[in-house]
């Protein structure tokens, strides 16, 4: 390993942001800034694709590892990827350029600052997924709060201040306990290097408390019921690009954290707390699906559906079965694509009508057919129709769940039905029916860039729906080794 490819992935967006910072900002004409940002993120995407191509799928050990002394004798700057994290990195680099293309209409003022925030956000998110040291992970995990706070607060909707504060304080509160746990791990084992920690393991008597501390942070970020309430607020008030980033990538940090840290570092405690996770996940699936049914605001509905989908993810992770964990990872990737697409579709009509209320719309199919077709695809992917990536994830999760706990799996399956109910009902009310609102008659169909973005998202959703092998091959070895390690740990204790 000569070329520090992961560090360049992390640093490139920051370099781009610095470059943007020094470009001249002419009022009303921000094309240069946009092209610079777009160029940076596309290059980053290409690098990450190269990363995926040169990634060795036959081993579960970390690849492209960089290990540098950072604080003498204490923390090393250590990054690397395995089958679990690489997909999230690609998801991040894939979604960000689409976000940047999409900001055309939604962000009117201070576009340059907005792009800087998005770029910085991207590099922090990539950092989260490659960090192999607990402190480095925490650093990236927390640092992401700053740009997201600004994105919601400056460019958000009417109640943006409340939402930004709620988002920031909720997640900070969850995370400080994780910091205590990380420092405690350092004093217990003498290292914060994840790879070494996998090898030496952590004493059983500490595991439960440490697990809970990590859980407090991840549960807020996931978000799990009952600490999910920041999410609808943040989603609704954030500008479209912000919602996309939040839903597609930020929520995945916690799911990734559960797999990498909760399962990997605290196997015994994970076993102990599985019932807790099951209960919370099942409540999240059923309860938030029901809430989603009753929403009148489209963005809020999608936000609640995110909570329900993340309920599936946590459920799948803690089945501790090969299928369950693989399903969770695929579900996260799929949800990243689908929720991004759904927020963008809402953004499209919001830009034209300036309303997110379902009651404003109705009968869209007769005026904007292209839009309606794509919207249908995404709605179906969200409810997990076979042939879309959403199906693969949910199916694998439920398979894992049936192996582990029949009752939980049955209840979760009911959640799938509810998911179909709210998505189809939303689609019916927005797209079908009589065109009652006079203003809707003048509405324009997708323009070129919107069409491009949505097709970009639709392609992988369909592709991986029919042919999920590239995803499964990438994660398979890592997941099976994780489970083997877990089982030997359980057996030895």
């Amino acid at each position: 390993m000569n070329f520090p490819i992961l560090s360049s992935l992390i640093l490139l967006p920051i370099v781009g942001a610095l470059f943007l910072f020094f470009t001249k900002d002419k009022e009303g004409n921000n094309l240069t800034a946009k092209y610079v940002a777009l160029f940076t993120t596309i290059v980053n995407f290409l690098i990450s694709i190269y990363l995926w191509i040169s990634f060795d799928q036959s081993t579960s050990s970390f690849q492209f590892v960089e290990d540098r002394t950072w604080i003498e004798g204490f923390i090393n700057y250590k990054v690397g990827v395995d089958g679990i994290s690489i997909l999230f990195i690609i998801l991040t680099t894939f979604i960000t350029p689409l976000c940047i293309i999409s900001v055309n209409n939604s962000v009117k003022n201070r576009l340059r600052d907005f792009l800087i925030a998005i770029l910085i956000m991207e590099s922090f998110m990539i950092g989260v997924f490659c960090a192999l040291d607990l402190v480095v992970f925490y650093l990236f995990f927390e640092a992401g709060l700053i740009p997201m706070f600004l994105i919601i607060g400056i460019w958000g909707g009417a109640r943006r201040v409340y939402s930004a504060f709620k988002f920031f304080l909720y997640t900070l509160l969850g995370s400080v306990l994780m910091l205590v746990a990380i420092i405690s791990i350092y004093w217990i084992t003498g290292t914060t290097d994840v790879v070494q920690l996998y090898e030496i393991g952590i004493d059983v008597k500490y595991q439960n408390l440490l697990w809970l501390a990590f859980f407090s942070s991840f549960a807020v970020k996931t978000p799990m019921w009952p600490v999910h309430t920041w999410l609808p607020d943040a989603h609704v008030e954030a500008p479209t690009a912000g919602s996309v980033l939040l839903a597609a990538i930020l929520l995945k940090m916690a799911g990734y954290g559960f797999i990498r840290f909760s399962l990997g570092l605290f196997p015994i405690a994970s076993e102990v707390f599985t019932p807790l996770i099951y209960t919370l996940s099942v409540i999240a699936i059923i309860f938030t699906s029901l809430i989603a049914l009753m929403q009148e605001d489209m963005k809020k509905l999608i936000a609640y559906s995110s909570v329900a989908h993340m309920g599936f993810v946590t459920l799948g992770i803690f089945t501790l079965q090969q299928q369950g964990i693989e399903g969770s990872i695929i579900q996260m990737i799929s949800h990243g694509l689908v929720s991004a697409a759904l927020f963008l579709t809402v953004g499209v009509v919001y830009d034209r009508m300036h309303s997110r209320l379902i009651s404003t719309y109705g009968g869209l199919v007769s005026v904007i057919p292209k839009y309606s077709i794509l919207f249908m695809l995404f709605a179906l992917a969200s409810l997990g129709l076979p042939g879309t990536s959403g199906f693969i994830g949910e199916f694998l999760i439920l398979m894992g769940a049936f192996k582990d706990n029949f009752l939980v799996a049955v209840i979760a399956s009911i959640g799938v039905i509810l998911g179909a109910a709210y998505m189809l009902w939303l689609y019916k009310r927005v797209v079908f029916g009589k065109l009652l609102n006079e203003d809707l008659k003048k509405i324009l169909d997708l323009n070129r860039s919107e069409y491009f973005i949505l097709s970009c998202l639709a392609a992988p959703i369909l592709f991986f729906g029919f042919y999920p092998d590239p995803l499964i091959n990438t994660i398979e070895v890592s997941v099976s080794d994780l489970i083997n390690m877990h089982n030997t740990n359980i057996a030895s204790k």
Partner: protein
Amino acid sequence: MENLNLVLPEIFISLSIMFLLVLGVFKKNSSKITFNLSFFTILITAIITINETFSVSRETLFNESVVIDSMSSLMKIITLIGGFLVLVISSSYLKTFKIYNIEYPVLILSSILGMMVMISSNDLIVFYMGLELQSLALYVLATYNRDQLKSSEAGLKYFVLSALSSGLLLYGCSLVYGFSGSTNFDIISNQLNSDEYVLTFGIVFILVGLAFKISAVPFHMWAPDVYEGSPTTVTLFFTIVPKIAALTVFIRFLYVPFLNLIDQWQMIIIFLSIASMVFGAVAAIGQTNIKRLIAYSSIGHIGYTLAGLATASNEGIQSSIIYISIYVVMNLALFSCLLMLRRKDQYYEDIEDLSGLSKNHPLLSLCLLVVLFSLAGIPPLAGFFAKFYVFKAVLEQSMFFLAIVGLLSTVVAAFYYLRIIKIMYFDKEKDKYDTDHSLWLKFSLTVSTILILLYFIFPSQLIEVVSRINII
């Protein structure tokens, strides 16, 4: 014969003070030259300090009443740098209020001299002498803008309350002297044993006096009023420089004479620390004046510093010193921003005056944003690392309660920092402020912001310097 080179910085600075006074009296319109000379004085003192004492591991002078070791020289250097930056960015503010006089640099220099004596003291009497020298200079500085009611009030309040605390401190010293038969720290440390209950009173009195000087809860009441009333540059001086000296003395008292009585004082320090962290975070929420808010926030930060001291370990002491150094930089940046809020010879210090700052002054508000997130302890900024080291030391001693309360109060504290950011970035803009700031002000803001922002790239350097300090 004593090696006087070790106290050369003190000797040089006192001679300079006398010279500047004489110059000021005999030369007309000499304020400008006094200011410039005082810059050089501090710089030369700092250079002498580095040259003469930085490599000394531990030396005592004058019947062991003065000690020069790695902690004292490091703290002196931080004090001098802090004092220097305060002086250089003061000029335009003082000129605006027509108080650009020779007394200002002379008073600052004398208080710095007092602090240097305090930092080096290894004897109750030397310590008290230094303390009074710095306090007397600070009383006058607080009232420096004497035409303003608030400034006079601040000075008077500070004088009365500080005199009271000095009285307590002196009484504590006399009790300790009574039980140990000596004023020398090393001898006290050998003589004291924890069976004497009255001795505990002595310790408590001394700690109360010192807690007053660093404005730890519940002895913080003077801070908001004094900080608000004093001229802004003096407030800046108050928030950073005396705290460094007082903290050093705190460390010295706890870990030299009272080291054997650790059971007696550890709970007190933990209490002071928790009370300061929690109170500083909660009380700042309702403030509308930035200077008052900074007062409460500095109370909170002192709480974190004390948390490091409560651990009774070298790591804890080192983490406290790292904390206070980073805190100095952050406060310097914060006040530089505050001093830039000037419009037509009037300075603005309400939080509401920051409204929409990011639209008119994007760079200034970006700096302020970095500083505020750093004060709130959000990674990857320097303020996070400061807290990180402290809690690392605290958790090493398994003091989970202290760590968890401390970290939870950072969340509360984050709220009021965020409120300022909200006002700057999310609210409607007001009129523009003047942009013709002095070069030094811009310099100090840029340098301190860059230090805060890029600290994470080279965190080891500071640790290396501080790791030479081994008190226990």
